[in-house]
């Protein structure tokens, strides 16, 4: 066939295009398959009985009524027998083993919502009925610890509720403070939040006794790691367990960890020899899935007369909740490891008190440690500017690490890797952000409205994110004889659009249509290794592995095509799903090339059979995207309500694969950031009873709270750590939201340093205003 008019522009230049998502069609048609949508023949339904007490010794679990119900099975820890505990994934900090949560409470309960028993029944309604008859008798022996700054108590005899104090730092902090012209100190706090995906968690397990094989549906985030740990816990070979990721209704870091319920559902299937399905309700989700964010920071800066930071000293109290889960002490560790953001800090000393309390255990939630840390660091920058009567943006510019200093060795670690800022033009981005949002006009408008009696203000938060966490990712790309392209990765999809981004990279590299790509993820039976979806890593890690595999396929396809087209390989280009001889215009499709490479094809010659390639990408360092949040708020001084009127985010992502999807990530992240800044908080009463376990009490933003948001995506600092220059974008919308909102509220009320705690609820603002105006500290 001859193509008379070859296009001038490459038709398959998909990287950088805001194409629509491959994921969407089944989801708008009601054809998604989430775990609750799946059933197995003869399945039982599980329901967890949860502790109604925050702390105390279990004296009795009365199961008599449930035991008497037809078809109902009840397990307590005693009936279950010895079960290995779920181990840690983040392992650098040792000594945490005593604090690991048992799958069902043993001897003591430690938070409201802790699994105490599991009920299996033929029908989910009956399982719930049976669970409600089970009475857990608890003797309250010690009052619950509910404040991470309170003196540590006893977890077990001889074992404190402070498992570890993580220390980091470098340089001579003491000397810097002694020489400082100014010392600025702040006492700040962030509330307790969680990701709250719209889909509750669920699990469906089936044990094939004949094959000795266990299948678990409902996995996500880290399917391969979870498979390997389940294998260890059950004494099975990893080859005897497969985890399957169905559609997943949001994760945000909290979903897809290995939870007690996952283990219990698998054990139910294995011991009862029937499939077991479990889907939590919203109330249990709020009490059982990982919490995050609750920290208290005492931070001090030593500053010279010109506003240069000389040293920072930081003491963090991290409220871990009742047990240590899969992340170990990672969030506390990275909170102080990544605290310094974009600024040059010659000396630094930080200590993170990682402490247990009688609350739901905590771990990562989108931008863990950075939402909190950016709030703290940017509050500090504003306070320094105020002390020195300096423009807060100028103060930041004076302390930014310069482009000539990149890559910049922090001398700190986070997520088990050295923090090396790979690339960035912080000063340049700040200038672009000011221009983009119309900074001067916004300031003038706010000033005019304040003069007219309104409480309107503007705040800025600058941040450095991290992304592209390794260590490795493996991808297999296969072109079928019909030209369709299958990409298999051990990464995961929680709704972020990774199928589309990976398809764009594959199709761009291969010269194909991105809609011809099918991306398979989260299936342990389809690929040997995988590191999942977290830490804004998928586009970087799976993206680069995909590019490598696709590059190999491209070259092999071109070699075969050259023979089919009687051309020199250098005269053949792959574009639009076919290979074209640029000298003649003759072409063959990718499907025809794959057919020519069939193992029995006479055209194949000595070439490797089939059109399939695997590639690894290994990466020992994260990369560091960065940006600025700018908020304009109006405060109703009567009600204490803060309205976000306008919002702008400038973000350097290195290389934007799909700008519309990146905007979507940023916008969605911002909704969670604004929730954390203004609305969301898990509160507890003095007995440790949770007060925020429904959507009526834990307030998440609706569309009425979301302002119009202007988003500027920049590509000024591609990462030198991968050839496409990719950095991640999953967390940028959250990171500096608390910082920007706090600064904007200070400005609106013309009270620098007013906001010392998130979320800024009306109740908090009223109380804090009274305290501030009386001259009190936070």
């Amino acid at each position: 066939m001859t193509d008379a008019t070859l296009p001038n522009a490459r038709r398959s230049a998909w990287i950088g295009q805001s194409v629509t998502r491959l994921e969407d069609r089944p989801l708008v048609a009601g054809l998604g398959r989430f775990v609750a949508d799946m059933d197995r023949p003869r399945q039982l339904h599980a329901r967890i009985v949860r502790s109604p007490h925050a702390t105390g010794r279990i004296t009795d679990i009365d199961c008599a009524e449930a035991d008497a119900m037809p078809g109902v099975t009840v397990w307590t820890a005693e009936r279950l027998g010895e079960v290995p505990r779920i181990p840690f994934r983040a392992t650098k900090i040792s000594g945490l083993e005593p604090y690991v949560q048992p799958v069902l409470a043993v001897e003591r309960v430690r938070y409201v919502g802790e699994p105490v028993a599991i009920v299996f029944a033929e029908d989910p309604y009956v399982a719930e009925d049976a669970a409600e008859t089970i009475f857990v008798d608890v003797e309250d022996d010690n009052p619950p610890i509910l404040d991470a700054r309170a003196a540590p108590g006893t977890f077990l005899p001889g074992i404190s509720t402070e498992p570890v104090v993580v220390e980091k730092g470098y340089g001579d902090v003491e000397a810097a403070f002694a020489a400082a012209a100014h010392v600025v100190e702040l006492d700040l706090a962030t509330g307790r939040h969680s990701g709250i995906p719209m889909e509750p968690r669920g699990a469906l397990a089936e044990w094939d006794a004949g094959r000795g094989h266990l299948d678990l549906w409902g996995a996500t985030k880290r399917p391969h790691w979870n498979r390997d740990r389940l294998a260890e816990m059950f004494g099975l070979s990893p080859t005897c367990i497969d985890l399957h990721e169905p559609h997943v209704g949001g994760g945000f870091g909290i979903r897809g960890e290995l939870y007690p319920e996952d283990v219990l559902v698998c054990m139910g299937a294995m011991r009862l020899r029937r499939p077991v399905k479990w889907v939590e309700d919203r109330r249990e989700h709020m009490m059982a899935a990982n919490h995050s964010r609750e920290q208290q920071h005492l931070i001090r800066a030593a500053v010279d007369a010109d506003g240069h930071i000389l040293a920072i000293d930081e003491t963090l109290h991290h409220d871990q909740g009742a047990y240590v889960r899969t992340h170990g002490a990672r969030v506390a560790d990275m909170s102080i490891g990544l605290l310094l953001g974009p600024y040059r800090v010659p000396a630094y000393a930080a200590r993170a008190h990682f402490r247990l309390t009688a609350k739901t255990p905590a771990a990562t939630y989108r931008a863990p440690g950075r939402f909190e840390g950016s709030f703290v660091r940017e509050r500090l920058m504003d306070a320094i500017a105020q002390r020195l009567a300096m423009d807060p943006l100028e103060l930041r510019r004076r302390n930014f690490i310069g482009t000539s200093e990149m890559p910049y060795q922090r001398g700190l670690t986070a997520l088990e890797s050295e923090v090396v800022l790979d690339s960035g033009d912080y000063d340049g981005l700040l200038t672009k952000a000011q221009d983009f949002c119309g900074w001067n006009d916004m300031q003038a408008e706010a000033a005019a409205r304040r003069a007219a009696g309104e409480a309107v203000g503007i705040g800025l938060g600058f941040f450095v994110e991290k992304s592209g966490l390794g260590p490795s990712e493996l991808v297999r790309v296969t072109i079928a004889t019909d030209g369709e392209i299958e990409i298999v990765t051990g990464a995961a999809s929680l709704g972020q659009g990774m199928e589309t981004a990976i398809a764009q990279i594959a199709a761009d590299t291969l010269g194909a249509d991105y809609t011809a790509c099918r991306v398979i993820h989260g299936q342990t039976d389809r690929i040997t290794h995988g590191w999942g979806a977290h830490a804004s890593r998928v586009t970087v890690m799976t993206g680069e592995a995909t590019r490598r595999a696709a590059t190999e396929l491209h070259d092999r396809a071109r070699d075969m095509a050259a023979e089919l087209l009687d051309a020199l390989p250098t005269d053949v280009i792959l574009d639009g799903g076919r290979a074209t001889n640029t000298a003649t215009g003759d072409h063959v499709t990718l499907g025809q090339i794959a057919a020519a490479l069939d193992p029995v094809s006479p055209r194949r010659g000595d070439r490797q059979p089939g059109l399939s390639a695997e590639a690894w990408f290994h990466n020992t360092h994260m990369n560091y995207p960065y940006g600025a949040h700018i908020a304009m708020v109006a405060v109703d001084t009567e009600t204490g309500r803060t309205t976000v009127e306008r919002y702008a985010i400038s973000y350097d992502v290195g290389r934007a694969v799909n700008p519309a999807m990146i905007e979507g990530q940023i916008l969605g992240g911002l909704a969670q950031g604004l929730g954390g800044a203004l609305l969301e908080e898990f509160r507890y009463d003095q007995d440790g009873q949770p007060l925020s376990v429904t959507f009526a009490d834990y307030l998440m933003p609706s569309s009425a709270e979301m302002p119009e948001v202007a988003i500027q995506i920049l590509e000024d600092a591609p990462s030198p750590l991968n050839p496409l220059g990719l950095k991640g974008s999953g967390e940028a919308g959250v990171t500096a939201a608390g910082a920007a909102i706090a600064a904007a509220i200070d400005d609106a009320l013309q009270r620098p340093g007013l906001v010392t705690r998130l979320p800024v609820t009306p109740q908090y603002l009223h109380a804090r205003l009274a305290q501030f105006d009386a001259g009190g500290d936070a």
Partner: protein
Amino acid sequence: MTDKTAITLTVNGSDHHIACAPRKTLADALREDCGLTGTHLGCEHGVCGACTITVNDAPVRSCLMFAVQAEGGDIRTVEGLAKGDDLSPLQQFFIDEHALQCGYCTPGFLMLIEGTLRQTPDISEDELDEILSSNLCRCTGYRNILRAARRALDHARTTTPEPAA
């Protein structure tokens, strides 16, 4: 309470003869007895709106209604929006505007908009925005959902609605 009653639910124009306990919610009956799992449960107490469907063109929370209450009503779910392989304009607007990410809340938003525009095709943009604040989404930050809904509103204003199949 657990004895089953025979009822007929008319969903997307088709009759489903099912037997369910009086306490079974409409959402559970649609999902488990009619096999229509496009209707999702997010909170089961009427706040999040993920389970929104229409009954006689009115958007309702199917988690707050018993299946037996819906007998005789014209029940519409997300599965009824497309005609065969052809997506409805509203569904296509959601794709074009990147109005979904994980897609879990999407059926509820689609049916909320569908029912609202069927009931009040002359609704103002501000009123439509107000109604959209009754459902929760945790992924998108809402702005793209609002844009897709505005396009559906424009479409509804310029076309005569077809009777549901």
